């Protein structure tokens, strides 16, 4: 009897994707400009999948991965989703960005299958946009803006804030929305001016002239922007001699852009975990090392982390539901309230498949060097009507 079991076990190990495996489909950009953002989070997801498989799998079955390239294209994303259905995907992981992930997520939704955005931070990447089976494990953009508002008020005595919004993508709008909701509620705090620019503006000289024409330099400038416009704006603001504390969202995490403004100081952002080796939680650094072992380099930004977290949460929900079937797993996910993960607690509800509050690590850049200096969780969750931009 024993040799037979051994043979069976060997067969199970050697066969790559058996019919009884649980199959996760990745509809992500493997080419085009989104690739730089999707690959780290997808790699992180696969690290968690490997860990689960090494620990005996999920519901006693191995997790297999199938992939399709969206080519950073909306139509390509829908096609990738359909392609993954043909390959037997039972759960769909889609591109980081709402616009590029939603077409594949809608394919999954149509098949009553769960979809997770790799790192979307727009409330539409969930119930409100795709449908009741769609999730994101990242932290909503307005939470990042609100975190910056409350932290700067409490820790840096920020009272006068200037809001500079890049109109390029919804994410930027979300950051500013969260900041503008939280900051005026705080004692003695006021927003003294607002302006907007476009991410690819060749120059923001007119916007800077407006800031300089204020009587007093604002305590903080809430810059709601992403690369490359954010780096360009910071360079021009500092070059003009404006020394206010600059706040931004998580999107500018990573040190790769810091050469754009040599010796940058007084720049603060919130992150889900620190890539700089100084996160107080041992699990975060353990992940950074696992990522380095798998790819040869540490994560370039915090946007690898949500990939790891989403597999973690989904796998827990599958274990509890005893099935991968969409509705049952969704019910288990929606029961999660402050569910512990390596990167802080996560919650889902039947109204919201996103984080409307989160423990965030605060990273400050001083003399061109980023370091984690603090952590902060906003005193109240961002209400749904603010998230919806009402």
């Amino acid at each position, binding site marked *: 009897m024993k040799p037979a079991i051994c043979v069976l076990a060997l067969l199970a190990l050697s066969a790559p994707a058996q019919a009884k495996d649980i199959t996760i489909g990745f509809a992500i950009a493997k080419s085009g*400009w989104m690739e730089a953002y999707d690959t780290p989070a997808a790699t992180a997801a696969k690290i968690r999948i490997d860990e689960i498989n090494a620990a005996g799998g999920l519901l006693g079955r191995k997790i297999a991965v199938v992939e399709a390239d969206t080519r950073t294209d909306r139509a390509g994303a829908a096609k990738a989703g359909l392609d993954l259905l043909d390959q037997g995907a039972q759960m769909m992981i889609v591109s980081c960005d709402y616009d590029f992930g939603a077409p594949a997520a809608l394919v999954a939704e149509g098949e009553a299958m769960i979809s997770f955005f790799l790192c979307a931070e727009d409330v539409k990447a969930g119930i409100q946009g795709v449908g009741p089976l769609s999730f994101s494990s990242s932290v909503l953009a307005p939470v990042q803006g609100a975190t910056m508002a409350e932290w700067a008020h409490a820790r840096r005595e920020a009272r006068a804030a200037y809001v500079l919004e890049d109109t390029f993508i919804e994410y930027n709008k979300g950051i500013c929305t969260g900041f503008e909701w939280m900051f005026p509620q705080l004692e003695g705090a006021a927003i003294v001016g607002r302006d907007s620019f476009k991410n690819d503006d060749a120059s923001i000289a007119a916007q800077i002239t407006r800031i300089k024409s204020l009587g007093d330099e604002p305590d903080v400038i809430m810059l709601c922007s992403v690369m490359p416009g954010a780096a360009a704006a910071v360079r021009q603001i500092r070059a003009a001699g404006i020394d206010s504390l600059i706040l931004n969202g998580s999107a500018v995490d990573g040190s790769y852009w810091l050469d754009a403004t040599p010796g940058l100081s007084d720049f603060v952002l919130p992150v889900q975990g620190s890539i700089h080796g100084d996160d107080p939680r041992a699990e975060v650094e353990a992940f950074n090392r696992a990522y380095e072992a798998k790819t040869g380099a540490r994560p370039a930004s915090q946007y690898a982390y949500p990939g790891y977290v989403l597999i973690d949460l989904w796998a827990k929900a599958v274990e509890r539901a005893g099935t991968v079937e969409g509705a049952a797993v969704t019910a288990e996910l929606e029961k999660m309230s402050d569910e512990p993960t390596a990167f802080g607690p996560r919650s889902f509800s039947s109204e919201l498949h996103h984080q409307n509050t989160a423990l965030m690590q605060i990273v400050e850049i001083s003399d061109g060097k980023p370091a984690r200096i603090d952590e902060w969780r906003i005193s109240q969750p961002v209400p749904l009507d603010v998230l919806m931009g009402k």
Partner: protein
Amino acid sequence: MSLQLVFDALSLGGIYAIAALGIALIFGVMNLVNFAHGQFIACSVFALILPSADAVATMGLGALPAPLLIAAILAFGAGLAVAAEALVFRPLRNASPVALMVASFALGILLQNILLVAYGGRPKAVSLWPQLGSPVQVLSAQVPLLQLLVIGAVALILAGLALMLKRARVGLEMRAAAEDFDMARMLGVRANGVISGAFALSGALAAVVALVLVTQTGVADVRMGGQIMLVAFIATVVGGMGSLAGAVAAGLALGAASALLQAFLPVEARPFRDAFLYGLVILVLLFRPQGLFASVGAKPRV
């Protein structure tokens, strides 16, 4: 405030004028709207750094001392444009303008994808001459040194180009070709020489825009150049297709209008700045469909 605004407007308009000139030069000699011009700009920016998909950029040409660096990047831009002409546009010389335009689109996409393969999709930081950002007091205005340099360089380039077009033989040939290409050829103007010359100039102008952009913003991104290319193309249309002076004037005007709209629109309307800008463009075209300074060749002669 007002003098400050004049500098803001002039420096942005100057960049647009140089880019528009690059497009108008090529349109003048071969009726081609070169939609790859934006990618010429992007390629010239990336030529500063070594190809690699790493997150942190390593300077390549960008590590050279300033005079050598400027010469090298201008030569790179010119070389790229000349190569594009020889490999892509010369075989299509007798094709319809639409086919040429589509070819330029295809070339642009090809160049962008080459950049993606060589450098990856993530924007990179390139700190070129950060000291140029420091502000200088000019009367009542505080102007970044770079803005002054841009305004000065634009004036110099325009003066040099005007002189070349008026005095030098190749300039004369270019003007003749812009006026009536077939006639010019019959009168002994060598088509290949003039067209290559126009492409080389256009590529060098793209490199100038690239240097200004990267010094201003400190970043290299594969998608950069696209927005400037669009504005520059609109400037050539507003200026009158084929008119070099028109392209420069319209480029300056668009930049100035953009800076003024940013300064004077109410905060709620500011995100729609470009809608106002292009609304103005439509208004101009309604009254002068042939553009502000239409060249003689552009008018139909019956």
